[in-house]
Structure formats: structure tokens, C-alpha cells
């Protein structure tokens, strides 16, 4: 698993990257009540705001962690936003993307580095 400074996790699954948010982020957000996902087939650039998560407190964006194309989204998390709190790094993945350059993940934080960042 790799991590971004925006509290997203990335897991390589074959030739695609699965993206979600960390348990730390879901705790900070509070109870999630709404998730808006991108359309599959959308081409995205790193840092594009492509998902919206709304908790009982506020709305936040999820940004594309890399350049690439959205190939699949998790309809289950849109139907049941509470999954983001229940199982953030498992069932509550948001989207799968094909990335232009998988080696870009090498520069990202591993779990130890992420845990150090969040203290």
C-alpha cells in the first residue's frame, strides 16, 4: 500500500491502481453520509478534484493521485457511504484507475512514512 499527503491509499491490482482514503482520514471526517464518484472512462490529471465526500460535518474532495483514466468506480460506497467509516481500506475503495506510469508510485509514502506524517 502507498499513501499520499491527502490521506489517500493506493493499492496496485494488476495493471490498475485502487484508491481509497485512510482510516485516519475517515476518523477526521466523521460519519460519511454522501459520496460522489467520477464517471468511468474519465481521463484525469494528478490533483484534479474527482470525488466528493460529505460527512455530517462538511464536504471534502478526493483528488486524483496520479495522471490516468478512471476504469471502475465502487457503486457500493455511493449506495452506502457509511462503509467509508466501517472499512476505509477495504470495502470502501472509491475508484480504480489506469495510470500512465506505475513507477510514479515508488516515490510515494509507504505505511511507515504515512504513520510518521500523521503522528
Amino acid at each position: 500500500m502507498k499513501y499520499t499527503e491527502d490521506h489517500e491509499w493506493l493499492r496496485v491490482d494488476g495493471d490498475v491502481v485502487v484508491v481509497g482514503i485512510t482510516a485516519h482520514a475517515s476518523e477526521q471526517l466523521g460519519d460519511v453520509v454522501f459520496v460522489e464518484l467520477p464517471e468511468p472512462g474519465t481521463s484525469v490529471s494528478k490533483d484534479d478534484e474527482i470525488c466528493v465526500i460529505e460527512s455530517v460535518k462538511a464536504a471534502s474532495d478526493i483528488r486524483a493521485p496520479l495522471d490516468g483514466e478512471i476504469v471502475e468506480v465502487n457503486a457500493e460506497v455511493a449506495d452506502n457511504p457509511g462503509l467509508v467509516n466501517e472499512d476505509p481500506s477495504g470495502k470502501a475503495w472509491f475508484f480504480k484507475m489506469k495510470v500512465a506510469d506505475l513507477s510514479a508510485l515508488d516515490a510515494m509514502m509507504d505505511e511507515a512514512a504515512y504513520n510518521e506524517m500523521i503522528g
Partner: protein
Amino acid sequence: MADLQRTVLYDLHIALGGKMVPFAGYEMPVQYPMGVLKEHLHTRAQAGLFDVSHMGQVILRPKSGNVADAALAFEQLMPVDVLGLAEGKQRYGLFTNDAGGILDDLMFANRGDHLFVVVNAACKGQDVAHMRAHLSDACEVEEITDRALVALQGPAAEAALARLVPGAAGMSFMQVAILPWEGSELWISRSGYTGEDGYEISVPDAQARAFCEALLAMEEVAPIGLGARDSLRLEAGMCLYGHDIDTTTSPVEANLTWAIQKARRAGGARAGGFPGAERILRELAEGPARRRVGLKPEGRAPMREGTQVFAATEGGEPIGTITSGGFGPSIEGPMAMAYLPSNLAEGATVYGDVRGKRLPAAIVPMPFLPNRYKR
């Protein structure tokens, strides 16, 4: 959090794992480990305990000894029938300004030889100054600073409080009573800010923590933070001062005409004679140009405070703005309040601009969830 005040229950909030945030000049718990959603649902299913000690408690004591004199003086600040409030009863009130806007909303009770007033935390300094400036001829304006205020809300509130204070069970909605507990006096009202049955209880600072701990020791009682307080009151269709009502909104625009009793309306025994009477009586007669309404967004996306509302999916100027909005855990969907032109009827569809997309929302009656007061 420098410069913020703490209520006498601060240490209890910390011990309970409360997440403290700045609110109206105080460090207050926005949630406890249970989380906003579960705290909300717990209050509707059982009983929730809220610290509202940051709110202002004020006694208006008539210099003549006759509470009617305090009532008549108080009526000069509000379009509300104070004189007609029976002893032992509480009522909702509003301070208005000369332009007919709302300075604050409040609760007041007739306690026989004086009036007891509870005002919003964010306004209490100006409210006390306002009362001193206008009521001092008739009353002593006494701010109570040595008592905490807590709310116990939910269907199990009666059973829980009655274990400590048996007399509370027999109270009816909007009744007040002074009842003993462990040698101290509790000032109790059967009212609240959730749409549920429940109580608000003023307790001396020295006993406040022990009183709360006695309630929290009961299985059905859980501590509830400001986050759930907000979603509970919004489902109940209640206004939050500074958001849904303020100095620019009149009580008529705010759809609070039920708070203006006959005695203060045109033709009433004490018609007018409150700040902004000209505008407020005119709006009562002719109807206001805009009115606070409930909105039920289609789909799941919440429409938050500040969202602009349009009449159509494209073009045109905004017809209003959302003043409170969020997700209602009990109605399992989004809900909002907005000021919209009065000619729009219930059932009409309007469009909220959410992140550049105009999403449909229906104008609906409030409350969003039927209230369950003990009448």
C-alpha cells in the same frame, strides 16, 4: 484555544472523550467517541445529555414585586404576549430591533414573582446589556453565573430524570418547576431543541458534574455534542440564531408568526409597542416577500449553508440562499432551510447550486420529522 471560556462541565467532557471545538466563545464538545450520527440516533431512540451551560440565564425581578410589571416591560422588547403567560409556564420569545429584524431568540418562564430567561450563548452579552438598558426602570436584571444548564432529550428522558427527581415526570410540555435534588435546587423546564420530549435543567455549578454523572450512569443516557444538537434541531425545523434568523430577517419572514400571539397583533389588547412593530404588523397583514421554508433535496447530496437557490436548471439570478443544511440521520437524507419568495408553494421544485451543478429540491413543510412533545 486561548481566550475561550469553559463551562463547569469541561473536565467531564474531557473525561468522556469529547472532541472540543470553539463555539460562541466557549470550548464545547462537538462530539464524543460515539460520533455525531450515533449520538443523533441515540437521542431519538433513548436519551441524550447536552451541556448548554454556555447559554445565558437571566432573572428579571420586578421592582414593584408584581411580575406583571416585569412582563409589561419585557413586552416592550418582543412581539410576544408575556403578560398572558401563566405562572409555571415557559414560552418562546424574540428580541426585535427597530427595523423588525431579530436580535436573538430566547425562552422565558413565569416563575410567580419573577421571569426567568434563557438566551443564546453568542448573544448573551448584548442581550443582558439590551435588557439592562430597557428594563432597569421596572426590573432588576440579574445574570445568573453560578449555574450550569443541561438538556436531557429523548423518549427515555422522563424515566431517567424521574429516578433522580420524581416530580419531573408529571410536568407537561413547556411547564417549569423548581425541584430539589441532593439538597440543591434544580430549575427544570419540559422543553428542548431536538423535537423530542425532554427537559432543560439549571443546576448549581457545585452539583453540576455529580448531577450529569448520575444521569450518565443510567444505561439509556449518553452524552451528546454540538454536532448532533445541530442535526436534531434541523430535523425538528428549529431555527439556529445567526444562521436561519438574524438582524436582517423579520419574525414573519422567518415563519415564526406562531410566536406572535393575538394580544400583540393588530386589534389585540396590547397591539404593537415593540421594536419594528411597523414592519412586523405590516408583514402579518400583507404577507412577507420572502419566507423561511424547508427544502428536501432529491438524492443524497447535502445542500449546505450558503448554497444559492435558483428557480430553474439554467440561467436566472438566485432566488434565495440556504441558511442551514445537512444530512438528517433519522430521515436518512439531506434537508435544508432557505429563504425563498413567498409565492413559491409547498411542493414546488427549486434548484440548489452544489459545486456548480443545479440539483433539484422540493419545498416541504417543517418539521422534517414529526415532533414528540409531551402535551
